[in-house]
């Protein structure tokens, strides 16, 4: 029997992989993709949990989250483009303009 716990485990693994990607990769784009992975895992937990309560509502939450993610990706990619114009690189370790 597949229970919600199984979904949690999968989501956990996805989340950890996302974190791994964010921490290890230097390419801003790939880091950004890792963030999307983590978002997806969170959504998965949301929907899996909703099965025990009200799936329609849970899906609605997840949908809003998807909308936010879409907006975020748009803005994030725009910033990456602008940054690339400025620094001609997408290496996160070279982009340290905001240091104190």
């Amino acid at each position, binding site marked *: 029997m597949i229970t919600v716990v199984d979904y949690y485990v999968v989501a956990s693994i996805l989340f950890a992989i996302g974190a791994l990607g964010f*921490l290890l990769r230097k390419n801003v784009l790939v880091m950004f993709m890792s963030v999307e992975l983590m978002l997806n895992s969170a959504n998965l937990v949301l929907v899996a949990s909703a099965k025990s309560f009200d799936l329609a509502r849970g899906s609605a939450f997840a949908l809003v989250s998807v909308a936010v993610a879409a907006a975020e990706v748009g*803005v994030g990619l725009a910033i990456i483009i602008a940054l690339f114009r400025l620094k001609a690189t997408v290496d996160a370790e070279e982009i340290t303009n905001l240091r104190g």
Partner: protein
Amino acid sequence: MEVLERVAFYVMAVLAVISALLVVVNRNPVASAMSLVGAFLAVAGLYLTLNATFLSAIQVLVYAGAIMVLFLFVIMLLNLEREPFDLPGIGRIAGFGLSVALLFSLISLALGAVARPETSARGGSGAEIGDVFFSDYLFPFEMASLLLLVAMVGVIVVARRRKPEEEEEEQA
């Protein structure tokens, strides 16, 4: 039926994990992006096993369709090359360790969860979600649309190419 469900879940789960790993491991950004599509599709499949059919469709449309296309466009636009390999530094080792720690702590947290009976009154069909959105959650729904609008404007402003004279002005 039971078995089928089980098989579907495991296939999708393994697919998702493998694709996710590929995203992280691939040094070519395009390959990473393609692996990400795989991961998104696998998650969509997982949604299907949860009966969240509408969400699953949206996942395919928005993530695998729109967002990934956006990523690919940007990758092409920036004309990125393969990321060169370099030896792991202290930061990376620590990052790897932390991720592993995160993995184990999350899994143990997940395993500790109690599975409640699946007693959802409503399903995840488009009609049911529509009901929710156009009654209780009208305001968040409208806000989401507003957010997308604002993001759109923002993206245009941030990413557009400035005219030389504008740039001079900004620098002054």
